[in-house]
Each structure stands twice: as structure tokens, then as C-alpha cells.
């Protein structure tokens, strides 16, 4: 093993294992220091490959650094730092530990130069992120975490099948740009897309993330979907299909967020919406578009974490998460309100915020390619972002009717986390070159032209007007919205319950007829049957998957 360099991902994974042994100030210092070390190490690393490990007949490359991977490692380290700052005094050790391993997994995926190590860290992310969800330790988080991991393991199996077939066909394990033209690459693409929150299995995101603790969601929002964006940027740039998938996700996110009552679920839907913009950029595939997608991933991680920190502060101080229970918090939580509004302006790409300098690159790319319809849809979507995240979130949480709640602003470290990210959102908006110089391609784009500022303000402010004109139509109700998860949360349980019902009936008849054969010992009660049927089903699944992968080879 030749590994002379400090691997930021492994550093975070190892420190995640140590966090549980630390307490109080030591833990605080540790969780703040480690992400800074990771950031320093990646900026002191030369571009190129390093850290190769022999595994079976393959040589794995754990570090392959270029401008794109450095961009993602940078934003991941900053997010771990700020997320830790936000919750270093409040979060449980196991949550922080899981979050560190999760972030380390994400960084290792970004640095991986080959498909095998990519897959290993991909799965580590799935496991660690489930632990982040479970550390909320509520019944809802347990159930949502279980649904979450099943979906992600399914994605992992699809990805594994794709990788095996791809390696078998090409003989190379290197992770380079691919074309979706064989079953192998299609499976890889599907595995990547599942983590990006693409249809049809979009529902896992809004189902699971809002069930994590007030701080867990901040970490969750940053890594899984954005790692998927990274691997798509690297593996499938210019794949036209991604434009249409992206557009679907953009409008799906807006519409479902408009229907939603849970403040953090609104923000979860808006993650899908924002990832949609990035996929559009990847699909368009020009240098401007790819730069735009990468830049948008960077700024999005920061303002979405900021929004979720402000929602997390509200949850932490009030214990409430539904818009119908909240409102009027501006009166007692000024810092949280201001930070939440800055995040909301940034996600809406208001001039002078980070979203303005990143999202407009994707829109500009569609103009450069003369894609009128895609441009129109992206513009409508920008208006819609302001509608569902830019105004709806702050309006229903901090303003609207007075709920009578008068919580204080959260503890100092939580405020500092929010203020730090709010400042970054504005800094990147005012000095876009701070972001542009890190991008993979040279940037030949000026966001601040008078025409661009005026048209963007028109678009956004008039959608704001539409919000207040249409407010009666958006009265909050105590409801949830059905989604694809209905199939595995409602339909399958109903069918299987019926099935068990028949089995129990059958068992009774069976017992009467063969009571002397002592077979009933094995079919003693309903639980036993459920267990064995469940095991049988999973065995069938495993056999099916294995035979599928054999068939592919």
C-alpha cells in the first residue's frame, strides 16, 4: 500500500469512531478541528492520483484529485465544520459520530478514482446516514430509517450489478466518463440517480430526512444527493435524459412543497427541486452548464444547511415542526429569522446572494444552446423556488398569524453556525470569483449585468406578489401528500396482512387435521409465520439478485 497523503475522507471516518470516547469541551474542540484538518489537507494536495491499494487483482485508487473533486471536498468540510458548530453542545455523541463517518464516506466517494472503492464508500454512506436518522430515537425515525435503508440498499445492489458488468465488459475499474449505452452503464446510471432523488423512487428523501433530529437533517441534506450529483457530473456529463429527469424533479419539488405542512419536509422537497437544476446542467453538458451544476451544488449545500439550521433552531426551541402550529416567531427569534431569510433569498437566487451567481450559469447555458423551452421551464422554476422555499418557509414559520409562541433564539453555538453560513451566502453572492476560481472549467461569465439583475428581480418579485395574491389558496391544512412511498407503506402491508390472515386460517385447519404430527410447533403463532415468510421473501430476493448479476455477466 502506497499512501503518503493525508486522506480527508478516511480522516473523518476514523475520527467518527473516536467521537464517542470524548466528552464536553474536548469533544467540541475535536469536532471543530477535524474538518479544518480535512480542508487543509485537500488544499495542500497536488492534483493527480495517489494512495493506491491492492485488492484481489485490482489496484484501487483512493485519491484522484482534480478541481471538481476539490470543490466538493471543500464544501463538504465546511459543512461538517458548521454542522458540528451548530450542534456540538446539543447533539448526542452517536449522532455526531455517524455524521462524521457519513461525511467521510461522501468525501471518499468524491476522491475515489475507481469504481470498486467508490462502491464501498457509497454503501458506507448509506449505512452511516441511516444511523444519523436513527439517532433521533423516535418511533417515526426508526421506521423512516428502515424504509430509507431498504431503498438505498436496493440502489446499492443495482449499482453493484452495473459495476460488475461494466468491469467485466471493459476490463477496467477506472471511474471515467461513460455513455449510457449498455445494460452495465444503465444500471450504474440508475444506481447514481436513485441517490440523487430521481423518479420514480423520489419519496425516500422527503420521507426520511425530516424524521432525523434537529441537527441530523442538516448533515443529511448535504451529502447523499450531492455525492450523486458529483458522480453524475463525472460519469455521465451531457446525457440528455438527465435534462428531462431534472425538469421533472424541479417541478415535483415545487408542487409537493406547496402542498406540504411540515416545515422541514418543505425544505426536503426543495432539495429535490434544487438537485433537479443540477441534473439539468449536467444533461445540457456544455462547460458553462457543468460549471453551473458544480457551482450550484456548492452554494446549495450551504444555503440548504442554513435553512435547515434555522428550521432546526425553531424545532429545538419549540418542539414544533408543522406550519399550522408555528407563526409569529420573528417577535422573539430575530437572529434565526434573519438567517432563515438570508437562506431563503439565496435559494431563490436573489442578486447579492450565492444562489444568484450559481443557478444563473445553468440558465445561461440553456440560452447559449438556444433551448427555448428548457429556458422557459427553468425560469418558471426559478419563480417557483421563490414561491415554495423563498417565501413560503419564512412566511409560515416566522410571520403569518401569531401562534402565541415566544421562544428565544437558540444557544450561542447554534446561532454562530447559522450566522457563519449566512455570511458565506452573502460573501459568495457579492464576490462570485471566490467560487468561480474553484470550478472545473474556466469561467467566462459575468452574473452582474444590469439587464440580468433587472430581469431576475422582475421574475422573483412578481412571483412574490403572486404568493400574497394567492395566499387564500395556500391555507395550511393538517395533511400529508401521497407519493410513491404509498406503494410500500400502504399497498404492500395491506396485501401482506391479507395474506397472513389467510395463512392463519389455513394454519387452523392444518392444525386440526394434523395435530398429531407436531408440525404445529413450527407454526405456533402468527409472529412465527410472519418471520419465516419474511425470511423466505428476502431469500428469494437475494437469489433473484444474484442470478440477475450472473445473467448480466
Amino acid at each position, binding site marked *: 500500500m502506497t499512501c503518503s497523503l493525508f486522506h480527508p475522507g478516511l480522516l473523518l471516518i476514523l475520527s467518527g469512531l473516536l467521537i464517542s470516547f470524548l466528552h464536553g469541551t474536548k469533544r467540541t474542540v475535536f469536532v471543530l478541528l477535524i474538518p479544518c484538518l480535512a480542508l487543509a489537507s485537500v488544499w495542500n494536495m497536488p492534483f493527480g492520483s495517489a494512495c493506491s491499494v491492492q485488492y484481489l487483482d485490482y489496484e484501487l485508487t483512493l485519491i484522484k484529485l482534480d478541481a471538481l473533486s476539490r470543490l466538493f471536498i471543500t464544501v463538504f468540510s465546511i459543512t461538517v465544520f458548521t454542522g458540528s458548530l451548530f450542534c456540538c453542545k446539543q447533539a448526542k455523541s452517536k449522532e455526531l459520530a455517524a455524521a462524521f463517518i457519513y461525511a467521510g464516506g461522501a468525501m471518499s466517494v468524491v476522491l475515489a478514482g475507481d469504481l470498486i472503492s467508490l462502491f464501498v464508500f457509497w454503501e458506507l454512506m448509506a449505512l452511516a446516514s441511516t444511523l444519523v436518522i436513527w439517532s433521533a430515537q423516535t418511533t417515526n425515525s426508526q421506521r423512516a430509517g428502515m424504509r430509507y435503508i431498504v431503498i438505498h440498499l436496493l440502489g446499492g445492489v443495482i449499482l453493484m450489478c452495473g459495476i460488475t458488468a461494466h468491469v467485466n465488459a471493459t476490463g477496467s475499474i477506472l471511474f471515467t466518463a461513460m455513455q449510457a449505452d449498455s445494460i452495465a452503464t444503465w444500471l450504474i446510471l440508475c444506481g447514481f440517480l436513485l441517490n440523487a432523488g430521481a423518479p420514480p423512487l423520489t419519496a425516500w428523501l422527503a420521507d426520511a430526512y425530516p424524521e432525523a433530529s434537529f441537527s441530523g437533517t442538516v448533515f443529511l441534506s448535504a451529502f447523499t444527493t450531492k455525492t450523486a450529483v458529483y458522480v453524475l457530473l463525472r460519469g455521465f456529463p451531457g446525457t440528455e435524459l438527465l435534462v428531462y429527469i431534472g425538469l421533472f424533479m424541479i417541478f415535483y419539488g415545487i408542487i409537493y412543497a*406547496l402542498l406540504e405542512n411540515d416545515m422541514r419536509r418543505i425544505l426536503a422537497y426543495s432539495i429535490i427541486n434544487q438537485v433537479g437544476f443540477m441534473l439539468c446542467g449536467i444533461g445540457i453538458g456544455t462547460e458553462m452548464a457543468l460549471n453551473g451544476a458544480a457551482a450550484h451544488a456548492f452554494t446549495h449545500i450551504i444555503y440548504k444547511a442554513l435553512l435547515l439550521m434555522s428550521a432546526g433552531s425553531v424545532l429545538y426551541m419549540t418542539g414544533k415542526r408543522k406550519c399550522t402550529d408555528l407563526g409569529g416567531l420573528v417577535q422573539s427569534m430575530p437572529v434565526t429569522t434573519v438567517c432563515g431569510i438570508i437562506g431563503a433569498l439565496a435559494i431563490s437566487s436573489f442578486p447579492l446572494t450565492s444562489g444568484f451567481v450559481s443557478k444563473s450559469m445553468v440558465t445561461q447555458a440553456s440560452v447559449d444552446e438556444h433551448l*427555448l423551452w428548457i429556458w*422557459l421551464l427553468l425560469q418558471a422554476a426559478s419563480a*417557483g423556488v421563490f414561491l415554495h422555499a423563498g417565501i413560503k418557509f419564512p412566511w409560515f414559520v416566522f410571520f403569518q398569524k401569531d401562534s402565541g409562541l415566544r421562544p428565544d433564539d437558540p444557544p450561542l453555538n447554534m446561532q454562530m453556525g447559522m450566522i457563519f453560513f449566512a455570511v458565506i451566502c452573502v460573501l459568495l453572492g457579492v464576490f462570485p470569483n471566490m467560487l468561480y476560481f474553484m470550478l472545473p472549467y474556466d469561467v467566462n461569465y459575468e452574473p452582474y449585468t444590469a*439587464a440580468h439583475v433587472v430581469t431576475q428581480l422582475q421574475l422573483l418579485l412578481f*412571483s412574490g406578489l*403572486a404568493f400574497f395574491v394567492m395566499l387564500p389558496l*395556500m391555507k395550511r391544512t393538517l*395533511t400529508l401528500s401521497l407519493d410513491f412511498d404509498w406503494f410500500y407503506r400502504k399497498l404492500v402491508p395491506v396485501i401482506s396482512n391479507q395474506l397472513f390472515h389467510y395463512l392463519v386460517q389455513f394454519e387452523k385447519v392444518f392444525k386440526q387435521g394434523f395435530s398429531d404430527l407436531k408440525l404445529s410447533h413450527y407454526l405456533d403463532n402468527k409472529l412465527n409465520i410472519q418471520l419465516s415468510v419474511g425470511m423466505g421473501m428476502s431469500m428469494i430476493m437475494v437469489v433473484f439478485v444474484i442470478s440477475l448479476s450472473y445473467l448480466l455477466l
Partner: protein
Amino acid sequence: MKQNWFYKETSIKKLWIGAIVILALTVIAEIVIVLHPHFKIEALFSFHALFGFFSCVVMVVFAKLLGFLVKRKDDYYDL
């Protein structure tokens, strides 16, 4: 208890007036500032304002209609 500035009748009125002035200014600015429309449709006066407003109206109405189909009580899955 002292009423917060945001919840006073007078300040809500002021906010509306301020908002309308700003909205008008962004449209009037189009006369002074030369835009560089790339697509023909962009050349329409105050295109972005109209497009932003009406696309939001369409999205809100669509969400409302879809709501009739997909909305359930929020304890739907707990039962």
C-alpha cells in the same frame, strides 16, 4: 404586551405600499436599462414580470388541484 411592528395595521399598509413601489420600479427600470433579449419572446415589455407572476399562479392552482387527489390526513400512515 407591546405589539410587534410587523403585526400593526399601519405597518402592514406601509409594507404593501413599499412593495408596490418596488415592483413598479423593477418594471420601469426596463425603459432605462437596455436588455439583451436572446429569444424573441423576451423582447416583450415586462416579460419577466408577467412570466414570473403567471407561472406562479399556474403552479399554485395546479398544486391545489393535485391536492384534492393526493392529500390525506397527516395520521394516514399511522393507522
